[in-house]
C-alpha cells in the first residue's frame, strides 16, 4: 500500500462512510465541483451526486443549522467550515442548538463539523486560528484534533458514527506534510482515547495536533542526552482521556503541557488543574506550559515564527525541568 497523506486519510474516511451509509452527506462552501478549498471532498460529487455533496452559500450559521435539521431527521451530515476560523459565524447554532438538543429534549444530533485549523502556513489572523476551546467549554459537544493520518482517518469515521455532535479540527500544516501506510479494511479510532506516541520515563509531554510532531522531534534530540520524553497525544479534547493522562504523569512525575492554541483558557490550564488535583502527590516538579502567546495569529514570517511554539522551546524547557 502506498503511503497516504493526512488530508487523503480524512478524504478516505469520509468517502468510506458515505459508501457505507446513505444517510451520510457533505455540505459546505465549494465542496462540490471544486472539491473544497483544500480538496478534502475532491471527487465526491462525481461519485455521490449533488444531493449528497451540497455546495452552499457563504452562510456558516445556515450550514450548521441545516446540518442540525438533517441530523434531527436521522441523517448524518458532515458540515465543512472552509477554515476553522469561520466557525465563529456558526457559534450560536453549534453551542446553543446542536450542543443542547439532547440535554434539553432528548433529541440526538449526530453531525460532524470539520475544518482546517492551525498556523504555520502564513495564513494570518483569519486563516490560522485554533478555536477548539470554545467548543471544549460547551457541554454536549465532542472535540477531536488528530495528529497523524492513521488517527485522522480513524477519528473521522468514529466522529461520523457517533450519536453526538462532533467538532473535528484538522491541522492544515499537516495536510500534505505527513503520510503513512494505513491498514486495509474497516477500522476506527474511538473518540475519547489518548495515545502514547512515544513512551518515555522522564517527562510527560501532553499535547495534540501538529504539536505532537514537535514533541517527537524534541524527544529524538533529547534522547541523545539521555533525557527520555513520553509524548501523550490527546487526540480527543472532549471527552478527555483522564486516565491515560494521569497514568503518564504518575509514571514520569514531571509534565510539560504543549499546545499551539493561545495560553489563557487553553486546554493546558484544564490539564494542569486535573493533574494538580488528582496527581498532586506524584509530581516532582512544576507543571509547565508551552503555548502560543495571548495574541491573534500574526502574518509576517518572523512574527508567526515567534508566535508558534518551537521544538527548541520544548528542548530547553525539558532540560530545565529534568534537572529540577
Amino acid at each position, binding site marked *: 500500500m502506498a503511503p497516504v497523506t493526512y488530508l487523503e486519510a480524512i478524504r478516505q474516511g469520509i468517502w468510506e462512510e458515505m459508501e457505507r451509509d446513505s444517510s451520510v452527506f457533505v455540505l459546505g462552501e465549494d465542496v462540490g465541483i471544486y472539491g473544497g478549498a483544500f480538496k478534502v471532498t475532491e471527487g465526491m460529487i462525481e461519485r455521490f451526486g449533488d444531493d449528497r455533496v451540497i455546495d452552499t452559500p457563504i452562510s456558516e450559521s445556515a450550514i450548521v443549522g441545516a446540518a*442540525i*435539521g438533517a441530523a*434531527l431527521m436521522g441523517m448524518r451530515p458532515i458540515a465543512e467550515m472552509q477554515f476553522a476560523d469561520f466557525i465563529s459565524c456558526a457559534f450560536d447554532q453549534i453551542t446553543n442548538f446542536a450542543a443542547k438538543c439532547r440535554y434539553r429534549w432528548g*433529541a440526538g444530533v449526530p453531525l460532524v463539523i470539520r475544518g482546517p485549523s492551525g498556523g504555520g502556513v502564513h495564513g494570518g489572523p483569519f486563516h490560522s486560528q485554533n478555536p477548539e476551546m470554545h467548543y471544549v467549554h460547551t457541554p454536549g459537544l465532542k472535540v477531536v484534533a488528530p495528529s497523524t493520518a492513521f488517527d485522522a482517518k480513524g477519528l473521522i469515521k468514529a466522529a461520523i458514527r457517533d450519536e453526538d455532535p462532533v467538532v473535528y479540527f484538522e491541522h492544515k500544516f499537516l495536510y500534505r506534510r505527513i503520510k503513512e501506510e494505513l491498514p486495509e479494511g474497516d477500522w476506527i479510532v474511538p473518540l475519547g482515547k489518548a495515545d502514547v506516541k512515544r513512551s518515555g520515563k522522564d517527562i510527560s509531554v501532553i499535547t495534540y495536533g501538529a504539536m505532537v510532531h514537535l514533541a517527537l522531534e524534541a524527544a529524538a534530540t533529547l534522547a541523545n542526552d539521555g533525557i527520555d520524553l513520553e509524548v501523550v497525544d490527546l487526540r480527543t479534547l472532549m*471527552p478527555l482521556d483522564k486516565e491515560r493522562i494521569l497514568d503518564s504523569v504518575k509514571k514520569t512525575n514531571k509534565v510539560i503541557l504543549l499546545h499551539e492554541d493561545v495560553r489563557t483558557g487553553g486546554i493546558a490550564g484544564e490539564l494542569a488543574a486535573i493533574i494538580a488535583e488528582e496527581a498532586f502527590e506524584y509530581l516532582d516538579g512544576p507543571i509547565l506550559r508551552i503555548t502560543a502567546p495571548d495574541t491573534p495569529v500574526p502574518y509576517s514570517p518572523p512574527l508567526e515564527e515567534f508566535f508558534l511554539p518551537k521544538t527548541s522551546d520544548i528542548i530547553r524547557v525539558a532540560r530545565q525541568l529534568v534537572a529540577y
Partner: protein
Amino acid sequence: MELTPKTLLDMLYYMKLTREIETRIERKLYRQGKIVGGVYVGRGQEAIAVGSCIQLEKDDCICPSHRDMGAFLIRGITPREILAQYMGRKTGLSQGKEANMHMGDMQRNVVAFVSMLADTIPVAAGIGMTYKMRKQRNVVLCYFGDGATSRGDWHEGLNLASVQKAPVIYICNNNLYAYSTPVEKQMAVKDISIRAQAYGMPGVTIDGNDVAVVFKATQEAIQFARNGGGPSLIECKTFRMTGHSAHDDVKYVPKELFAEWEKKDPILRLESSLLRNKTVSEDEVKRLAARITREVDEAVSLAENDPFPEPSETLQGVYSDQTAEAPLTFANRFFHR
C-alpha cells in the same frame, strides 16, 4: 384538506384549548408560584398556529415558536405534557431540563425552540433538504415572530432554503412588537413579506386573526412546496394581547391598540361566524367551553401531582454515552480514602 365545517370546529376547539391553557398558565399557575421562570403566551395569535398546522400530514414537521401552543396540541402534545413541562416535572417533554414552550419530540416531528430567535430558520431548511434527499413529499412549517426577522440566521436560512428549494413554509406572526420595540423601530419595510422577493420565494401578507385566511394561504404554500416549488413566506398580521412575558406590565403599548385588536379577536371572530351561519348552536359552543375547562382542569391536576426530576438527573443526558461528573467527585474521594 378542505375547509369543511368539521375542520372549522376542530380549529375552534384547538384555538379555545390554547387560550384556556395559556390563561391558566399566565394568570393563575404563574401567579400562584406553581410555574417559575419565564412565561410567554400567544394570546390573540391562536389562529396562526392552528390554521396552518391543522392541515399537516403525519410525517410533516413543525418548528414552532414560543407563541404557537396550538401547533403543539395539534401534533399530539397533550395539555398534561405542556403543563408538566411548565411546572418542571419529570413528565414534561424535557423532563425538567427546559422551561415553558422550549420543548420538542422528534417522534411527533416537533422541533424544540431556542431563545436565540431565528435559529430554527436554517434548521427547518435542513429538515426540508432531508425530505428532498429522501424523495418524500413532506413539508416543514417554521414559525417565528417579527423580531426574529432582524437576525442574520433568518436571512441566511431563507436564502439557503430557497436555493435548495427546500419544502418549508415560513410563517411569521407579526404581532407588531419585539418585546417592547414596535415594528417601525425594527425595520424600514412596511411588510415583512416583501423580503421574500430578496430570496426568490413567494411572500404574502395576510390577516393573521382570520383562521380561514391563514388556512387558505398555508394550504397554497404547502401545495407549492409538496410539488417541488420550494419555500414560501407568509406574514400574518396580528397582535400580542399581553406582555412579552408574564412579568411584563406592557405599559409601552397604548391602551387603544389593545381595544382595537380586542375586536379582532380570532376566536370570537370564528365563533360568531360559525354561529351566524348556523354551523354551531349556542348550546354546542357552551358544551365545547365546558369540555375544554374539564380537560384543562384534569391536565392541571395530573401535572401538579407529577413528580419532579431527581436532582442528580442534572448530570444526565448531555451525551449519548456518558454522564457528567459531579462537582465534588474527586475532592470527596481524596478526603475519604
